[in-house]
């Protein structure tokens, strides 16, 4: 019986440690590298909030649980970018790529967004 209790305790610890992951640091950059501003919209259905902020690339984004992030990037000479991400996506990728953790213990992962150049159309 005591063995079973130890096993249950062990699995409970593993389970709780998994639940404690509440954020992942996503380091956003573009390919080719750009220093233009990225607009980040943070939508929380749980808290019913919708906030936006901008940051100059490359920039870190703390991706938290129960939030959806819309990243839009407008770079001169390239088509605009709009991508959506959440914690599940960031965490699975961080674990898969094994890109390490921050000093706070959060997982960190790069997100390199490829830009598509606008084709120069010659005037008729």
């Amino acid at each position: 019986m005591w063995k079973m209790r130890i096993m249950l305790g062990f699995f409970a610890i593993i389970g709780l440690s998994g639940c404690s992951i509440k954020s992942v640091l996503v380091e956003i950059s573009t390919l080719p590298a750009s220093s233009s501003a990225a607009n980040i919209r943070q939508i929380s259905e749980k808290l019913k909030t919708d906030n936006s902020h901008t940051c100059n690339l490359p920039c870190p984004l703390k991706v938290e649980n129960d939030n959806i992030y819309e990243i839009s990037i407008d770079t001169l000479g390239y088509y605009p970018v709009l991508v959506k991400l959440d914690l599940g996506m960031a965490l699975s990728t961080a674990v898969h790529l094994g890109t390490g953790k921050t000093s706070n213990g959060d997982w960190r992962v790069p997100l390199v967004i490829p830009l598509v150049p606008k084709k120069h159309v010659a005037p008729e």
Partner: protein
Amino acid sequence: MKTLKNDIMIKHKKSHLFQSFFIIAFLGLLVSGCATIISGTEQDIRVKPVDAKITIYTWDGKVFASPKIKEDTKATVHRPYSQSLLVLLEKDGYCPSYWLTYPKQNNVSLLNAIIGGAIGAGIDASTGAASEFSPSEFYLNTQETQKCGK
């Protein structure tokens, strides 16, 4: 007499335990990598239009796949190895579209993990068969180039 009886009972229990262990291990080996065998390591995704170009990137900027879109709008790609991927769909004259996929658990692999245990789950994870693309349909934004961006 009582000790002898106890000894026999213990031996009997042990042999039962060994038998059960070998049966479970054998069954485990039988269903090992079940999703790898049943669903395979590749998956069909649907892409429209057929003359668009699709490129799938890993988050660190490497090209994961650049599959050919067939006439029936299907394209075959390797399963995503339990990671999110960035899908870029582009076509001349249209704004490119971006998606970040979610690595959805393959149902066959989930069943295998329950029945087959660690061996089967490990094989499915290493071959990539444990997960699948979500979404698996990618349709290009039909907004014209002129309306898109600066």
